[in-house]
């Protein structure tokens, strides 16, 4: 099966090359159809968001399309901040023209006249080629007024992220475009109704939008032949850690974790655990490596695939050390607004840090569980709600290894135990 999203070529395609490779043919075709037809096709494809939330894209687009407004916006979320994730980097660096074509198609479908490509600040090295691409497209009539003589106006502005994981959350992203701190907004109202500057806005991840091209090109039915019954299409998995070949791999849903690691990544030795979905994802022991990479398989574990980041940890990784570093990440990235996330992350990071130095007691496990639960149930937004997914799953399988630290023992030798440690 050929890939839907990635050409095997690694080179950055110029505009001419892209056009020669049938670039913009899909756009031209789409512009001749009524917008509702496009949305119907996307609904039929069962496409869900690829950024982490997994919401049905067709429904989201439909909500925006239905709104009556003098202006609507499309935002492409390339704030890729989930640790272990670098797929959007690849999409934007290999072929930004494809991403832009997808944006134009989506904008047409929902009736948006202005788009924002919000790229995380750490990818600033991608800015120049993207700006150049936008300029070329304006010159060629693919952006701006009356695109391809269709009467459709749309242009895209590049916006830089500024170092805040929380801005991957769509309402925080919108706050940041509006010139404020990235504090998530109250939902409802949802961005489809009240988004950027109060107008109907569609916010979607880069990979999500990139899927719209193959759907409109091949049709929903062909698209659905990739993947499983409930998870259609392919997913870009960013694999890092102890695999031989780290990188981004496109595989159809339904591929097992073992297949991905062995067949695509050259395998890995002495696997201890795998975290799926980035730092906010579930931690699976090696024994579960045959799990299918699909939404339904993970939903049975009350988990999701998140951004599709896969971190493979071998026996040399100390689970407690790993959890400690992860907790420090969430503590640093919390916006600080709501009690469960701000205070919860504070306590969790502190307890894990102390435990890794042999300080604490068995009761700390109860505290970790209790705090994780309240964060999941009562946090204002997804950051707090998923920050402890890894911790809770790790406690299921690795509680003994963690508790061993109280006897000042660390299997892997990673943790050291200073006398009278620092609290």
């Amino acid at each position, binding site marked *: 099966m050929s890939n839907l999203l990635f050409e095997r070529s690694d080179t950055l395609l110029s505009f001419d090359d892209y056009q020669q490779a049938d670039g913009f043919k899909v756009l031209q075709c789409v512009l001749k159809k009524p917008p509702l037809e496009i949305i119907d096709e996307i609904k039929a494809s069962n496409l869900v968001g690829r950024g982490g939330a997994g919401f049905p894209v067709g429904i989201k687009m439909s909500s925006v399309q239905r709104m009556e407004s003098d202006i609507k916006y499309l935002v492409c979320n390339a704030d890729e901040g989930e640790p272990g994730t670098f797929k959007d980097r690849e999409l934007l660096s290999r072929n930004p023209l494809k991403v832009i074509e997808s944006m134009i198609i989506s904008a047409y479908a929902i009736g948006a006249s202005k788009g924002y490509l919000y790229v995380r600040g*750490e990818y600033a090295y991608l800015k120049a080629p993207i700006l150049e691409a936008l300029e070329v497209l304006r010159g060629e009539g693919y952006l701006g007024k009356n695109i391809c003589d269709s009467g459709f106006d749309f242009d895209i502005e590049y916006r830089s992220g500024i170092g805040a994981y929380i801005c991957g959350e769509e309402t925080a992203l919108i706050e940041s475009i509006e*010139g*404020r701190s990235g504090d998530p907004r109250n939902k409802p109202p949802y961005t489809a109704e009240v988004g950027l500057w109060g107008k109907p806005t569609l916010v979607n991840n880069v990979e999500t939008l990139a899927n719209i091209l193959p759907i409109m090109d091949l049709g929903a039915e062909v698209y659905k032949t990739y993947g499983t019954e409930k998870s259609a299409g392919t997913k870009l998995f960013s694999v890092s850690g102890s695999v031989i070949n780290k990188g981004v791999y496109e595989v159809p849903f339904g591929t097992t974790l073992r297949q991905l690691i062995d067949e695509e990544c050259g395998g890995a030795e002495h696997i201890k655990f795998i975290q799926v979905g980035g730092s906010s994802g579930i931690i699976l022991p090696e024994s579960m490596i045959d799990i299918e990479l699909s939404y339904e398989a993970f939903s049975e574990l009350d988990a999701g695939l998140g951004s599709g980041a896969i971190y493979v940890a071998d026996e040399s990784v100390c689970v407690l050390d790993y959890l400690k570093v992860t907790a420090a990440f969430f503590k640093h990235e919390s916006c600080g607004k709501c009690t469960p996330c701000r205070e919860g992350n504070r306590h969790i990071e502190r307890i894990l840090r102390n435990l890794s130095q042999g300080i604490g007691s068995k009761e700390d496990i109860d505290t970790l569980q209790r705090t994780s639960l309240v964060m999941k149930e009562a946090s204002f937004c997804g950051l707090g709600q998923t920050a402890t997914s890894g911790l809770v799953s790790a406690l299921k399988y690795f509680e003994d290894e963690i508790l061993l630290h109280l006897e000042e023992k660390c299997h892997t030798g990673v943790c050291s135990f200073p006398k009278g440690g620092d609290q």
Partner: protein
Amino acid sequence: MFSKGGDIMVGKVLEIVDKLGRKEDKLIEILIELQNQSVYNYLSKDVIKEVANLLDISETKVYGIANFYSMLSTQKRGRHVIQICNSAPCYIKEGQHLVTIFEDILGINIGEVTEDKMFSLEYTSCIGACDQAPAARIDEMIYGELDRAKVFNILASLRREETDE
């Protein structure tokens, strides 16, 4: 263009604000541009005050928003800012050693600036280079699969560039 403190002149602020737009929602783009053009990669008190004046936002609000984002700094940093990734995929195995390598070579700890004000060292969350762990970001470039030799060469090359200027 630069005042004695080696930083951005207040007049430059007006230029940038006029170029990007004198509206409240342009605040962050303006701050990014101002920081990029400053020598020590930060937003000084004068700059923040001037931006606040021009955009009719309170000084505290501009300061507050600048401090929300990890990529903006209201503290003076080095002419080159070195950010070492401390998220799990980088930090777990080699990342911690990377910190020691930089600290060794530069003679400063994380959070500090070298005496000649050339380099400052800080942590950063995941920069999306996990397939090339351990990685660091220096100015706008990301460097992966770093070891002592590579770090040494990169820093030396930056030093050479500066002396050439």
